[in-house]
């Protein structure tokens, strides 16, 4: 360990460059992993709760609403139908706007539409039921999650592609910077290496200190990136609390393990740490092997 630290201190600029680029790459990989996990969690959440919301015209009668409810029940594809009257809708609105009295003042129960919230047995019934009720008397608008799911899928795919390209570039740059730094150090130790070879040192013996040095940089960069990620998650938790209002928990299946990604928890932090550590190992081991192989060949 002392040898590794001494060697790093002897080349402070190269060490700083390698550490910075590794830190940013791992930070980005962590952010990518977290955002994709959240999106996956949201998608799973929406997919497992298929629901149609039917908004009625403000002046529609209770008979109209009851008729639609009966029609839906008769299909035997629903699990629960909840009637939200204008008064109930106003109560809900009041809860949402409790911090903004001006908005509340401008609203009254009469202007809010009554609605039916229909929980459906399977997501594929959603379009069929929406179409069935859309031209019933009194029905103003039918909303279901198809759009939300499609948007989330599109967003997930875009985030994945953009971050993949960006991450690949950074990973490539990290490997180049680390390989160059190590090659420089190997060149400085050329004489020492030739002595070791005369004494019968194997290639793995010669490689060892360079691998240790690069892995050490990787460990430091992983730790820094994770401290930064955890700090960011903790400091933005209020924002996420508001953003995910009504969603008590987000779970996503990661590497076959179903994990709670929201609210922020230790299990998810450990998985994030493991993912960044694996990337870090891949980059540091890869570049140290490339650098030493080039010389030893």
């Amino acid at each position, binding site marked *: 360990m002392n040898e590794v630290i001494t060697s790093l201190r002897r080349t402070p600029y190269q060490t700083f460059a390698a550490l910075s680029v590794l830190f940013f790459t791992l930070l980005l990989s962590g952010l990518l992993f977290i955002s994709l996990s959240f999106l996956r969690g949201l998608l799973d959440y929406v997919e497992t709760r298929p629901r149609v919301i039917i908004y009625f015209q403000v002046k529609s009668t209770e008979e109209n609403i009851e008729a639609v409810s009966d029609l839906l029940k008769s299909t035997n594809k629903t699990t629960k139908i909840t009637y939200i009257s204008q008064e109930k809708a106003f109560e809900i609105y009041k809860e949402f706007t409790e911090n903004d009295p001006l908005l509340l003042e401008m609203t009254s129960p009469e202007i809010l539409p009554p609605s039916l919230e229909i929980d459906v047995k399977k997501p594929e019934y959603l379009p069929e039921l929406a179409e069935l009720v859309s031209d019933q008397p009194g029905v103003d608008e039918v909303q279901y999650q198809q759009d939300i799911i499609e948007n989330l899928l599109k967003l997930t795919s875009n985030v994945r592609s953009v971050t993949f390209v960006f991450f690949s570039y950074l990973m490539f740059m990290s490997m180049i910077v680390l390989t160059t730094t190590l090659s420089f150090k190997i060149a400085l130790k050329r004489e020492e290496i030739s002595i*070791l070879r005369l004494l019968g*040192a194997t290639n793995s013996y010669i490689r060892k200190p360079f691998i240790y040095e690069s892995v050490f940089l990787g460990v430091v960069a992983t730790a820094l990136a994770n401290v930064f990620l955890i700090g960011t998650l903790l400091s933005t938790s209020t924002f996420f609390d508001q953003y995910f209002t009504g969603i008590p928990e987000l779970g996503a299946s990661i590497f076959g393990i179903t994990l709670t990604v929201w609210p922020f928890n230790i299990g998810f932090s450990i998985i994030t740490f493991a993912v960044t550590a694996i990337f870090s190992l891949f980059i540091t081991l890869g570049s140290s092997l490339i650098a030493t192989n080039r010389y030893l060949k």
Partner: protein
Amino acid sequence: MISFQNTTVKYPLGNKALDRVSFDIEENEFVYLVGPSGAGKTTILKLILNEIQPTEGSITIDDMEISSKKFKSVTKLRQNIGIVFQDFKILPEANVFENVAVSMRIKGFSSATINSEVNNALKTTGIQDKKEMFPAQLSAGEIQRVAIARAIVGNRPIILADEPTGNLDPKTTWEIMRIFKFLEKTKTIIFATHNTDIVNSMKRRVIVVQNGRIKKDMKKGGYEL
């Protein structure tokens, strides 16, 4: 046993560094390799270390044909050879103890064995009180003792010494020679030198190399060209 049979080393332009050289060196034998600069002494040592390959002929060490193109155990071969050079070839960033210990670490000895054997070697070479010091803090004679200590630890039966006293004053030269004398009969030592006094003082086997050829091979010789 080290055996050279009609060994020739040719440079790409055709001139010969060694020309049909043949000799055998027995186990634990002390041999002086003498001759003027450029005669081929260092080439012989480089061949034994497998740093270069002969263009013709063969070299065997303990029944290992090291001159063969198929020979792959270079590290294993070198792990059996201790080296002491005129330019010391010491690790500049390691202290005395580590410089000697590296010879054993390479071979995978345990820390306890390394500790005891290195301390014994430092005692033998008279630098046990300098073990924490770095090469930059030592005199040339002390550095050469470190190299000798490194050569004798870790069960290396052969020592190749290439002008080990070339950079030393006469007093230190004799101190170094006393250490080599002490090691006699326990290791095979090949000692390349131009120092007439050293060769004449010990009356050991002398192989005289000149223009890439063995000029004389004397059982108990002196320095003569």
